[in-house]
């Protein structure tokens, strides 16, 4: 097989159909950008779930009196509650944080929110017990059991929040994948259409190739490569678009969340992780579409 012949045919084919080629590349790029975004969301959700599993499942906030008077948690109300929590079934660990420690954590979280740091005062915040549960325990049971105990102001069930956050992120992912699928369908039709057009434009060449005994493979390869080259260029544009989206929108949008420890910002590592997947998907899907189109619609 003559590589120079095939590559010349591919370049000529793409050039001759330049408007369709651009349409094909852009549609593929948009579809893959959406797919890439979906994959990044999946990765972020996985990371969030991991980091959330390490955080407290339940936070027991102590009332004002205990918070103010017993910063070392040595008096009966506080130490008794702590001992009881430690004994309760399903509790893996209990960590006491004094008002000052809660304040310090808050300041740390508000690292990039100076206005909140300004108004935060240790006296405004309650001391707390951070309770880590084993996976099988329902956090609501702890809420019921200790909700009315002396010294308890309220119990915050973090896992509800986490669940709803993960749920929302999963909705975003599903929505992105749905649009990506629709867009991918449009991209497939365009690829198929472009190949048919390309084959029609070159019917004299392919007719001659058939008559002089070129193999089917030799005749079809330039068309197949044309589809794959466009697909791969589309995937590279998609990677570029992901970078632009990260720089222009996501970094700003996710900054307020960065202190919470729930969602880490989208990093170049995330984009680097999804990029090869996008290129591979583009090459395989466009190649397959090209092959099927040639088999079904084009007599070569």
């Amino acid at each position, binding site marked *: 097989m003559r590589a120079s012949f095939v590559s010349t045919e591919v370049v000529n084919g793409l050039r001759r159909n330049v408007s369709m080629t651009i349409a094909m590349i852009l549609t593929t790029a948009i579809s893959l950008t959406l797919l890439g975004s979906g994959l990044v969301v999946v990765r972020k959700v996985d990371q969030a779930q991991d980091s959330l599993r390490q955080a407290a499942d339940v936070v027991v906030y102590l009332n004002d009196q205990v918070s103010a008077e017993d910063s070392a948690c040595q008096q009966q109300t506080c130490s008794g509650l702590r001992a009881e929590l430690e004994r309760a079934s399903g509790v893996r660990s209990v960590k006491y944080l004094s008002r000052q420690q809660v304040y310090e954590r808050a300041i740390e979280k508000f690292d990039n929110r100076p206005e909140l740091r300004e108004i935060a005062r240790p006296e405004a915040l309650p001391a707390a017990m951070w309770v880590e549960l084993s996976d099988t325990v329902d956090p609501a049971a702890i809420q019921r059991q200790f909700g009315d105990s002396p010294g308890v102001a309220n119990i915050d069930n973090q896992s509800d929040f986490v669940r709803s956050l993960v749920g929302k992120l999963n909705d975003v992912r599903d929505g992105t994948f749905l649009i990506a699928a629709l867009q991918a369908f449009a991209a497939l039709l365009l690829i198929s259409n472009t190949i048919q057009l390309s084959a029609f434009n070159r019917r004299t*060449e392919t007719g001659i190739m058939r008559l*002089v005994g*070129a193999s089917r493979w030799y005749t079809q390869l330039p068309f197949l490569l044309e589809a794959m080259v466009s697909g791969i260029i589309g995937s590279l544009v998609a990677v570029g678009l992901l970078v632009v989206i990260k720089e222009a929108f996501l970094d700003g949008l996710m900054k307020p969340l960065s202190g919470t420890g729930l969602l880490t910002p989208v990093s170049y590592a995330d984009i680097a992780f999804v990029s090869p997947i996008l290129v591979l998907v583009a090459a395989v899907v466009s190649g397959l579409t090209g092959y099927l189109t040639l088999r079904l619609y084009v007599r070569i």
Partner: protein
Amino acid sequence: MIRLEHVSKTYKTLARPALDDVSVSVDKGEFVFLIGPSGSGKSTFLQLLLREEVPTRGRVIVADWNVAKLPRRRVPKLRQRVGCVFQDFRLLNNKTVFENVAFALEVIGKPRHTIRKVVPEVLQLVGLDGKADRMPAELSGGEQQRVAIARAFVNRPLVLMCDEPTGNLDPDTSQDIMLLLERINRTGTTLIMATHDHSIVDSMRRRVVELSEGRVIRDDARGVYGVGR
């Protein structure tokens, strides 16, 4: 070289068969005119030899290949041994004369040094030396047909099939093309030519197979176009 044994070809859209129980045998190196009115089955006859069509009944043998039974992947091998020339030349207008002829070798994967050696030889054979860099649009009809013949012959086929090769040419040019085809035939290449051109058939006095409504109605070893002319 070529044998059709009781070959019939029917199309669903046609009431009568395009070929009806046709048996013809052509030896190696023969020159055969295939004549008959439009719709008599000449084109179907040629398409069967190239495996563009398969017979509904009967056997088609070309150079020891049973064409109808040939697996798909072997069809290109058959076509490399059967060259074809058409009335409308079918040249690539964006390629030079040299590139048009070279194309036939490139697409079957012949190495570049072979192409550089063989193409000028065949251009000389067809009388186009010195015109290798011309574009088809710069050539006369006769010269364009010479390019098409060079392309069909460059891979040294066993059989050269010509479907009305002089149909678009004036009588003098047609005569030149026939001299060229005769020269190719003298190299041992079997030649089958479908034509409507009375004067050519009459002047060459070669074998004539006449088809009418899909049947062979005449097979003369040294015939003329119309009986009794």
